[in-house]
């Protein structure tokens, strides 16, 4: 790329005509993409490559890995990690960290279970109560960080320790609460009816295609920067292949003994994750609040001078993170069928941070998307799933997951260095 600065054009040749408004062809966009990769802007690419690598390794090592039964299992296992990671993306975006998200999920799940068991609340009321508890925790953390200026690492470490007291006090040491509400437990153990799944899948593909093409038309008609039509078509094709392919895969009877049982359909967790993904993607890319999150993560001082209420943005990021942690705790309880005092106190948080970072969210703030959590969460969930099938000792699982997290953080740090030198 030539530096346009060094060539001084005569002042008469004014105008803004040198601005290229679109990539002329798919080849050009491919070239741009390669340039961005070289400049260190990797996005989710390492995670996607890692996912493919893991799938190749595990499927060649064990023929049960690629069965639809295990794939459906993987979706359910990944659900709670993905949702927690999606919350973590918001605090990472503003350059902070939330170490307490895992136990905040555990505490919220405890509240939900208590509401269901002791007070006979409806599932939705109990869920709302749990999410409200999460939001309150986030509000407390965010206020301490934003108003007192305590580093989020310290505040959330304190909350990580203190919040473990909540389930321990409410449940009692060694006890556990059953989690068998038909709807909430059903999120993990029941499936969307095949027909409904197909309709939903087709609606998603059609809506995505319509939105992409509408965007292309409105931008190109006004002569604004837009991607080439070919790229839009490819995007639609890839999304359709993934969505329809997975739907087809999960609509097959996957019971280990197909003559006795019929297990088919998309696990209910998936629509929950997809709905959250769509919602947060909209918030991040199409709302003023989302734009302000990126601004605060990129340059908080610039955001403040632009009149953005930086404190409010900071607090909201923590509120969103802890609320998502509550939903994650709910999904995790739904998967295991119980809530125990240790819920959320284990690896959940580090898995989620790992998922977000592997998926392409920067630990240094300002870069990240909701989809990062989905891709990264699948990678993180695939590791214990595949290693479990290989009957490896569980210490291997820890080693591999730790290694993957370290690798992802290194990729992030290196790509950040390259970005600052390449200036992309």
């Amino acid at each position, binding site marked *: 790329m030539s530096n346009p*600065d060094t060539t001084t054009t005569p002042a008469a040749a004014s105008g803004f005509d040198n601005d290229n408004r679109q990539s002329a062809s798919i080849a050009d966009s491919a070239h741009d993409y390669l340039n961005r990769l070289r400049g260190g802007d990797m996005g989710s690419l390492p995670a996607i490559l890692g996912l493919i690598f893991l799938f190749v390794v595990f499927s060649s090592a064990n023929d049960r890995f690629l069965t639809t039964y295990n794939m459906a299992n993987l979706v359910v296992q990944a659900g709670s990690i993905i949702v927690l990671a999606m919350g973590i993306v918001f605090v990472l975006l503003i350059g902070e960290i939330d170490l307490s998200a895992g136990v905040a999920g555990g505490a919220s799940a405890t509240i939900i279970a208590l509401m269901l068991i002791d007070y006979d609340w409806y599932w939705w009321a109990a869920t709302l109560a749990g999410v409200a508890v999460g939001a309150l925790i986030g509000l407390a953390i965010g206020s301490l960080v934003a108003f007192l200026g305590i580093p989020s690492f310290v505040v959330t470490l304190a909350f990580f320790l203190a919040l473990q007291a909540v389930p321990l006090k409410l449940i009692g040491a060694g006890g556990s609460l059953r989690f068998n509400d038909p709807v909430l437990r059903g999120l993990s153990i029941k499936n969307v009816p095949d027909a409904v799944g197909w309709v939903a899948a087709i609606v998603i593909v059609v809506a995505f295609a319509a939105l992409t093409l509408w965007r292309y038309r409105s931008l190109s008609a006004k002569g604004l920067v837009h991607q080439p039509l070919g790229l839009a078509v490819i995007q639609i094709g890839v999304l359709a292949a993934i969505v329809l392919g997975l739907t087809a895969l999960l609509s097959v009877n996957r019971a280990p003994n197909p003559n006795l049982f019929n297990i088919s359909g998309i696990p209910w967790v998936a629509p929950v994750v997809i709905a959250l993904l769509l919602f947060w993607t909209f918030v991040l890319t199409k709302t003023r609040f989302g734009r302000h999150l990126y601004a605060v993560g990129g340059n908080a001082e610039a955001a403040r001078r632009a009149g953005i209420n930086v404190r409010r943005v900071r607090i909201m990021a923590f509120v969103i993170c802890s609320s998502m942690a509550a939903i994650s705790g709910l999904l995790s309880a739904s998967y295991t069928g119980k809530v125990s005092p240790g819920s959320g106190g284990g690896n959940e948080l580090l898995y989620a941070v790992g998922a977000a970072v592997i998926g392409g969210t920067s630990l240094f703030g300002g870069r990240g998307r909701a989809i990062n959590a989905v891709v990264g969460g699948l990678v993180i969930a695939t590791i214990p799933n595949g290693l479990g099938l290989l009957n490896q000792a569980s210490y291997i699982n820890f080693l591999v997951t730790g290694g993957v997290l370290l690798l992802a953080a290194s990729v992030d740090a290196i790509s950040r260095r390259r970005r600052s030198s390449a200036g992309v």
Partner: protein
Amino acid sequence: MVQPLLELRGVNKSFGVVHVLHDVDFAVYPGQVTALVGDNGAGKSTLVKIIAGIYGRDSGDYHFDGKTVEVHGPRDVAALGVEVVYQDLALCDNLDIVENMFLGREETTRLGLDEVSMETRARETLASLSVRTVKSVRQSVASLSGGQRQTVAIAKAVLWTSKVVLLDEPTAALGVAQTRQVLDLVRRLADRGLGVVLISHNMGDVLEVADRITALYLGQVAADVPAKDLTHSQIVELITAGRSGDLGIADTSATAAV
């Protein structure tokens, strides 16, 4: 004489026991570049921050368009049409040019951010400033050179139909070609009828582009004169000693003000 667009009269400001500004008069005229010069600690930054509404005044009046206005914060000043481009450019590296120009003032439709309208307006503003060095308005600010960033920061100020633009050391970190671009841009802003304030240490820049020069010396106005009446060495004397020949503080203040 043209009425000043923005005028401060008899401004005093103290921080604790330190009296930073003494009865400072400062005026910005439409269509003119007013250079504000002074050594470190002369009170330039304090004066700019008072104009920007970041600091309050101990005494003195704030006039805008001939009327006395009450200014209580940066938002009041922005509402008057006064924009400040700070030395450490207030841009977000991770956002693109359009996103930066509309930061904090994004336009929305019922369906969320109105990217079409924002990109169109950003493009129009850059074109009206004859900015031609930017490859695409959708490239991230991190990929811009220092001069381009300064251009974006200035364009951001202009976008909001401002009447007065204050530029704090806009060429401090730039190379020769980039300084050229920014000075051209400063001149064009004034030619459009804006009141431009240029704070600079570079006498060459000041003499080249400024119409009036206000020199501060230890918190007092040493001189407020048309730029064509001053030479390079006179400005330096005003900055370092507060006086130069019959100009300056040692004389009665009446002769210093033109």
